[in-house]
């Protein structure tokens, strides 16, 4: 059955290898360009704030960033897309060709047929996306030049991409088995998966591991490798807003202090005065780089649990098949 799975889906397996390899070549070329530009940029002591100071700096900048946002989006989407491309036809393709009727009347249970196909497909998906992961990591370093924990980078760094790919794969298998038309299933999977991922990124990931909270003094240096979640004034004695209040407080005094030059960094002396006069302090909440691997693990776990639930759903749907 392992051989049969490979043979049945050989063309889509080979096509996804080709897509992955083509993208890897593209990423290596553009990433190499970015790295080269960065070398020039730093060796000439250029500054991002005053890039116009020299012609060399200008030309080095024009080489960077041309593709980086597109590439970041592609790196973010590719694991899920590969998962869907491999997952959707796994069951839906056979139903459309009616070959499920052939397969289900051989001397093998439907469950074993399904689990073997899913096992082979999932291993393949994980292998291909896992093989891309080091390249993505390198590219993020070369082109993005900031911490891996910060949002667009987090999604394409580490092993979370494998979890995205596996859950997309299982979503494809499950909807393919339920909708029974590969095209429609694919069309349904793309927005569903995108919504789930964006939702988890925006609302779940920030608190997945409890963030570090610091009360920052006026002279405290602030690292830019952290992933900032919130910052603002809160009454002394509290490290988070009082119940019913948000970080963007409507309190007039706080607003006044807020207006004295706070963003995520603080420096102004007037702010210190403001704090003292109003019994407030400035609090920052963020995920430090040290939380990168635990966060990767926690978010991967969510997606793997989703994949597991979809697997159970698919097994039930196929076992209880009605035609």
């Amino acid at each position, binding site marked *: 059955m392992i051989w049969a799975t490979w043979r049945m889906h050989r063309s889509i397996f080979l096509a996804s290898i080709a897509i992955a390899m083509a993208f890897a070549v593209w990423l290596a070329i553009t990433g190499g360009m970015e790295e080269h530009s960065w070398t020039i940029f730093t060796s000439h002591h250029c500054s991002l704030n005053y890039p116009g100071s020299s012609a060399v700096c200008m030309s080095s900048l024009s080489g960077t960033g041309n593709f980086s946002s597109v590439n970041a989006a592609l790196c973010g989407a590719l694991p899920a897309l590969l998962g869907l491309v491999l997952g959707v036809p796994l069951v839906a393709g056979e139903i459309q060709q*009616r070959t499920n009727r052939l397969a289900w*009347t*051989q001397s093998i249970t439907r469950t074993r047929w399904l689990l073997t196909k899913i096992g082979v497909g999932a291993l393949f998906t994980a292998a291909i996306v896992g093989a891309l992961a080091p390249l993505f990591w390198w590219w993020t370093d070369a082109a993005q030049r900031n911490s891996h924990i910060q949002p667009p980078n987090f999604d394409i760094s580490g092993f979370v991409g494998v979890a995205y790919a596996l859950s997309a794969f299982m979503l494809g298998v499950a909807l393919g088995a339920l909708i029974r038309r590969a095209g429609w299933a694919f069309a349904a999977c793309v927005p569903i998966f995108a919504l789930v991922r964006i939702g988890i990124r925006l609302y779940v990931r920030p608190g997945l591991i409890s963030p570090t909270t610091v009360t920052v003094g006026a002279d405290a240096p602030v690292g830019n490798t952290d992933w900032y979640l919130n910052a603002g004034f809160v009454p002394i004695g509290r490290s988070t807003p009082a119940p019913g209040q948000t970080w963007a407080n409507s309190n007039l005094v706080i607003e006044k202090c807020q207006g004295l030059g706070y963003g995520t960094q603080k420096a102004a002396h007037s702010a210190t005065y403001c704090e003292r006069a109003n019994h407030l302090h400035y609090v920052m909440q963020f995920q430090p780089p040290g939380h990168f691997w635990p966060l990767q693990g926690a978010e991967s776990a969510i997606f793997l649990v989703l994949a597991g639930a979809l697997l159970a759903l698919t097994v039930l749907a196929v076992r209880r098949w009605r035609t």
Partner: protein
Amino acid sequence: MSESMAALEAMGLGKRYGRKWGLEDCSFRLPAGRIAALVGPNGAGKSTLLRMAAGITRPTAGDVRVFGRSPQDQAVEVLRQIGYLDQERPLYRSFRVDEMLRFGERLNPNWNDAVARGYLAALDIPTDSKVGRLSVGQQAQVALTMCLAKRPALLLLDEPVAALDPVAREGLMHILLRSVVDDNTTVVLSSHAVSDLVTICDYVIILSASRVHVADDLDYVLASHRLLMASSEQAPALPPGVLVISTRHSERQTNALVRVEQPVTDPSWRVVEPTLEEIVIAYLREKGPRNLAFDKPRDGDSSEDAR
């Protein structure tokens, strides 16, 4: 396998598609070692019945058993006993023929590769060409070979002769007869053309308008039906104790195909033994609700029915 165990048994079997019943209240008991003809017009429910027997489709009502076990369990022991040829002959079109055989070999412990290759060689089907490149008839032969090489105890063949030329039909009938004799295989063949099957079958299931009208030994079916003929001007009343299946009136003559319990002795009717084809056509022609009320074959009608 004990003689008393039915190869295929349906008990009140029904399948509803939406509001419409594809097959309704279907009961019969096919003893092992028989070749059963499943006849009925297109859309009568033949494929639905075979799919349920193969465990692909789930019944809405009733139960179906293959050698006493439900194919709905999807258990390997049941699946091994069933060789199912789907009406659409699904095959992996991108596979070469020998890859198709390898698929069968890997998935079936009883697979007989020599048998499979022998059939295909006899049919001049090249094993190195892609399945999708073969003609429709050749694909049908490959699909059949897959069923036969599995060496099942029960062959469920949906319209097996439909895509075959007359020579290939002969060949298939010969193969089926041999496997019944050699391996005690039970065969159910469906067809909308009775003439295809009448030469080899010894059991008949007549389906029409989603219902089973007859399911019995061919000999019994032939013996229990009579064609009554009389001239139309003086057509007498039908003799008592007969069940009218179908009547045909022309200006000159009235013909009635009836089911009888005892010999018809009424001299005003000319009594003829009908062919299977005539019986089948009579059932298929009169498929209105009035005919659905007739008594089904009673238990004990069939000589094998010694439970």
